[in-house]
């Protein structure tokens, strides 16, 4: 289990920074800086620019994403914003609007 879990009932308005893994099940409005793995689960809402290590999304992100590793948009994910990452997968059933920059 990840060291940090922002539960489904929780809303954070502001800036979240984490050195360790983060699982988002609730809502974050503001900024999310993760140094390690970030998982945005189904039902989660992130209205924030996100920096992260590996990022897995099954929920909703509105904001720009900058991962220094890979980004996986799973079925059910909804992402509006630009993605900068070394690798990206967009699963069948994921919704995505924005640009992809793979830093080549």
């Amino acid at each position, binding site marked *: 289990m*990840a*060291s*940090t*879990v*922002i*539960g*489904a*009932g*929780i*809303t*954070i*308005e*502001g*800036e*979240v*920074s*984490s*050195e*360790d*893994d*983060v699982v988002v*099940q*609730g*809502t974050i409005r*503001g900024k999310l800086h993760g*140094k390690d793995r970030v998982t945005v689960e189904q039902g989660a809402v992130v209205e924030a620019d996100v920096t992260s290590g590996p990022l897995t999304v099954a929920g909703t992100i509105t904001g720009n994403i900058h991962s220094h590793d890979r980004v996986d948009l799973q079925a059910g994910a909804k992402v509006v914003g630009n993605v900068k990452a070394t690798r990206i997968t967009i699963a069948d059933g994921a919704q995505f609007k924005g640009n992809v920059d793979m830093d080549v």
Partner: protein
Amino acid sequence: MAQGKTISRGASHSSGGPSVLGAGVTVRGRLTGDGDVTVEGTIEGAVSVTGALIVAAGASISSEDALQARTAVIAGNVEGGVVAQGNVRLMASARVRGDLKGSEISIDEGADFQGRIDASFELPAELAGGRSALKA
């Protein structure tokens, strides 16, 4: 009064699942919502939850407003006070600056606390009538 030495999570959960903010986490802003929350990291801002709030040893919360929760167990550093519907417990490692309010307040030996305590409770029968009842 709770006497256990371990920090246990609240027995019941509200609609949200339990949340943990790990030791490497810093939040600048407001944290609100349902469910139990365990804070091991740092929060600079208000906290208001409907479930149990646990501030672990080594954690730090500074807020202009008092922290709001159903119950609160504090083993870390809190600036800004605590308001709970239920119990507020300061563990031995707690350092709290601010007022405490709850149905029951307990402060373990070794806790560092500066502030006021506001606890509503029923007086024992022999004290309920004031001084006249004591003499009777």
